[in-house]
């Protein structure tokens, strides 16, 4: 346990949770505040990525359109993809990892609270670093996949690709820090009695996600370093004129990129596996099968990367292997879908907003899965890859899947996080606008792709028959945007006028619903003991009715990690270092020197700072 109850000690944390003001946020190491910082950043970048998507849709609304220039269009689709993956969906998952995992496993904080703070600052600074490029007219423009050798200095001489590769490198640091932290947290900080096979499904899926992050991100890190060497120091890893191979980049990128897809979707699997049982008033169907299918998906996820590369002509043996491995993933995925349906089957469904989004997730994800099986078949994929059919497919997985799941989680845990329940009526309006808008936008893309429209084209000529469906898609994208406008209004309205939420508004099954909404800084005045998979339902059943509202306590003697600004100082070192590297040819090595100095200065002070609040009357600097 990183935190200990020292009941007999003098006051330490009383009043701690009530601290407000900018400084308390800058120095926070509280996992719940870190979660909210992730949330603010993720929401901002999600809206930015959404605006980019709308500009793309306006440009494609008619043939030969000149609404944006080709150069800007390429920046838009590159940044839309990069933003939605690295700056919206991943950090939105981080919101729930941070806020919910410690609560679900009965812990007072994460294993490494300052590393956690470092992670969120690196994410925010990395996101800014990537997007600052727009101000210089040099936003990344080679696609989120950055295929070599288009990214070489010869074909992309500007700063665009530099911003992209260094920005991703910064964000990778954040992801790896979080992965280490939550892996250790889940393995080590579970409440007594919470065996692995008693963990809530969201915690299980998160644990698997951490393993994926730990194994996948080093690959992209190495690939980006190789690209950096090609661009800055004249090596030829991916430059054919120097004997390098662009296909090497594709392999490295997709060995990271395919597990990345599961990094984006598994947290949503977990969220939905929490929401469906609670709103069906029935436990998750086939718990063990759900766990093992998740593990199986993650394992297979590392053996299918080349299905992104069927069109490169790998030959029949490789095609066959990667095709069959990909199809195999359909089995555990199918098991998950059937178990979700099995969960609601025979239940007593309460169609509140979180439930609607969770059901929407299942319905949309089925379609994404089915189109996925279609291009798992290389002969079919030779037509479909790099067309709008694939755009349709992965939006059904990542929007219909991940985003629907994350929005379900937002409505579900909002009362726990902010102490107020989001308005259910507005939530339902949001749901229907999102469901209809989503399908209007992305369903026609299946057909337009099969009818010959490639991806990543800034326009299309008249006469290929693409006009009608593209117009429909553009209309759909604005309906979708209206859905999120309703959500923002709902957030504002709830913030201003919402009634306080009880500790357990949904008749929840897991530990987070046993403590006040929002929780106090130490989460649990006493660490609970767990004896089943649905500890709160067990407790309620034993009691024969709802539990009493938990009191807000003083927190006397609870021992918490000390606030620190060194993670933020250290985090600043990374963008400074990379900016220095990027501009080294113009300003000399000084930027690099300052960045490295900042990193070491921050790290040094971080390491020699006591990590827990000192307890008056006990010892001075005793804990590290």
């Amino acid at each position: 346990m990183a935190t200990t109850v020292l009941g007999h000690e003098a006051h330490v944390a009383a009043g701690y949770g009530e601290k407000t003001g900018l400084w308390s946020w800058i120095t926070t190491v509280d996992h719940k505040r870190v979660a909210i910082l992730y949330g603010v950043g993720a929401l901002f970048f999600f809206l930015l990525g959404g605006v980019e998507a709308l500009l793309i849709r306006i440009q494609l609304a008619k043939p030969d359109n000149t609404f944006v220039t080709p150069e800007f269009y390429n920046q838009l689709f590159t940044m839309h993809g990069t933003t939605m993956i690295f700056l919206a969906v991943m950090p939105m998952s981080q919101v729930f990892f941070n806020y919910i995992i410690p609560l679900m496993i009965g812990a007072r904080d994460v294993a490494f609270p300052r590393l956690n703070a470092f992670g969120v600052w690196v994410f925010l600074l990395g996101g800014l670093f990537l997007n600052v490029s727009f101000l210089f007219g040099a936003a990344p423009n080679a696609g989120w996949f950055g295929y070599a050798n288009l990214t070489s200095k010869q074909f992309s001489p500007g700063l665009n690709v530099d911003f992209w590769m260094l920005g991703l490198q910064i964000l990778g640091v954040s992801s790896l820090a979080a992965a280490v932290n939550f892996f250790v947290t889940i393995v080590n900080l579970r409440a007594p009695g919470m065996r692995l096979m008693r963990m809530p499904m969201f915690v299980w899926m998160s644990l698997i996600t951490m393993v994926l992050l730990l194994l996948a991100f080093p690959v992209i890190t190495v690939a980006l370093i190789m690209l950096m060497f090609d661009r800055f120091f004249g090596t030829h890893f991916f430059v054919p004129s120097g004997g390098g191979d662009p296909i090497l980049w594709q392999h490295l990128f997709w060995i990271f990129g395919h597990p990345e897809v599961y990094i984006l979707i598994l947290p949503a699997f977990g969220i939905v596996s929490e929401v469906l049982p609670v709103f069906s008033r029935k436990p998750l169907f086939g718990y063990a099968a759900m766990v093992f299918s998740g593990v199986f998906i993650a394992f297979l996820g590392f053996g299918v990367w080349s299905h992104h590369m069927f069109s490169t002509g790998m030959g029949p043996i490789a095609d066959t292997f990667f095709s069959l491995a990909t199809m195999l993933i359909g089995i555990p995925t199918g098991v998950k879908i059937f178990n979700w349906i099995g969960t609601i089957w025979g239940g007593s469904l309460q169609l509140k907003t979180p439930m609607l989004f969770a059901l929407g997730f299942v319905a949309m994800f089925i379609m994404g899965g089915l189109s996925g099986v279609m291009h798992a078949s290389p002969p079919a994929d030779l037509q479909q890859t790099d067309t709008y059919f694939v755009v349709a497919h992965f939006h059904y997985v990542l929007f219909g899947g991940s985003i629907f799941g994350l929005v379900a989680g937002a409505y579900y845990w909002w009362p726990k996080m902010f102490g107020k329940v989001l308005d259910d009526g507005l939530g339902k309006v949001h749901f229907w606008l999102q469901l209809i808008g989503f399908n209007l936008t992305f369903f026609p893309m299946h057909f337009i792709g099969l009818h010959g429209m490639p991806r990543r084209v800034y326009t299309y000529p008249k006469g290929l028959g693409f006009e009608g469906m593209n117009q429909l898609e553009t209309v759909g994208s604005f309906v979708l945007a209206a859905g999120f406008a309703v959500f923002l209004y709902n957030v504002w309205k709830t913030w201003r006028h919402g009634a306080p939420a009880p500790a357990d508004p949904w008749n929840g099954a897991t530990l987070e619903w046993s403590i006040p909404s929002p929780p106090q800084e130490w989460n649990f005045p006493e660490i609970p003991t767990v004896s089943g998979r649905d500890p709160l339902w067990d407790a309620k059943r034993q009691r024969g009715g709802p539990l009493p509202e938990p009191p807000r306590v003083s927190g006397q003697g609870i021992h918490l990690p000390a606030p620190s600004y060194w993670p933020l100082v250290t985090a600043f070192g990374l963008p400074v270092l990379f900016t220095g590297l990027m501009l080294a040819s113009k300003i000399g090595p000084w930027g690099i020197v300052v960045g490295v100095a900042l990193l070491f200065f921050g790290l040094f002070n971080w390491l020699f700072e006591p990590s827990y609040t000192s307890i008056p009357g006990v010892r001075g600097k005793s804990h590290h």
Partner: protein
Amino acid sequence: MPLGSRVIRRLNWLAPLLALAMVAACAKDFPQTTLAPKGDLARIEDAVFFETVKWAALVFVLVEGALIYAVFRFRGKPGDPEPAQIHGNTVVEVIWTVIPALILAMIAVPTVKAIFKENETPKGNALTVEVVGHQWWWEFRYPEYNLTTANELHVPVGRTVSLKMGAYDVVHSFWLPQFAGKRDVFPNRETRLWFTAEDPGEYSGQCAEFCGIQHGRMAFRVVAQPPAEFTSWVDHMKTITMQPAATSAAPIDSVHTSSAGAAVEQQTAPPAPPAPGASDSAKAQPGPAQDPRVAQGQKLFLMKGCVGCHSLVAYNAPKGLLGPNLANVGARTYIGAGTLKNTDENLTHWIRFPQDVKHGVLMPNLGVTEDEAKALVAFLRTHR
């Protein structure tokens, strides 16, 4: 597998129905569609695709149906008693693990068969064409005829075309939906694709791998011709020289003599419409009254630097030029790799302001005046 085959037979009505629904009016309304294959390779891909569609449709209906049914059937009210607490059912779980596995096997078998079929090397008398992807246009070479052309690939109907492909600069992808699907092309690496065209006509394709600012304007046409027509096109292409067609008889060089035999043949089987008054007929009689702008255009082609990047000779053309071969540019349907229809007006505009039409293209705005551009157009129109 009696059960499996029975299921398949029950499903057989689905495929044609779906095919019908999706293909309806495809080729007419969507000239670049993948759903109306006109070549053998595309048919293999199409057949596998519909195999997956068939099963996907069945699964879709059953699973979404079960989901929607459950939502309506099991909708509860707040006061309802707690439903039965079921944690799982091993038999059911095993069944719904095995059934998807069987369905995937049904897709896997035709998939693997098709993978090996499409990876076969074409046998027999295939026509080899070398494809080179450039930012942002396509170069096509016929080693068999020593011909080079750009953005419009002529192929004979019924004879398998074997593509040996590469890229000049970055990665591109050659996508010809109605004949062949797509294959990426790389610098310094050969990839292959093959197809056999079934019906004469013009088919469109385009680059499918993001390759820079003008990836969206990197289309090409394939003109499938009956064998005789194709042969005369080849023979005709061999006769094209730097000279405007009407006067091309005068400076016959070694290039021309080597194709003389072909030219004779051609007169017995006159070429198809594209070039009625072109070089071949010019040899028999002096051309019609020559537009004075043609001679001026020819001069400008040399003076303005066009010749630095473009060749006007298809036969034994120099390799490694930066710009597309223009030997038959006068007869092509599009200019700028599918950017504009090949009208005099568009061509004039393109010659004057390529950077406005297709920003980022390697061809600079050369400061050509309107009159000069018109003269160049008149000259280029003689290259058909």
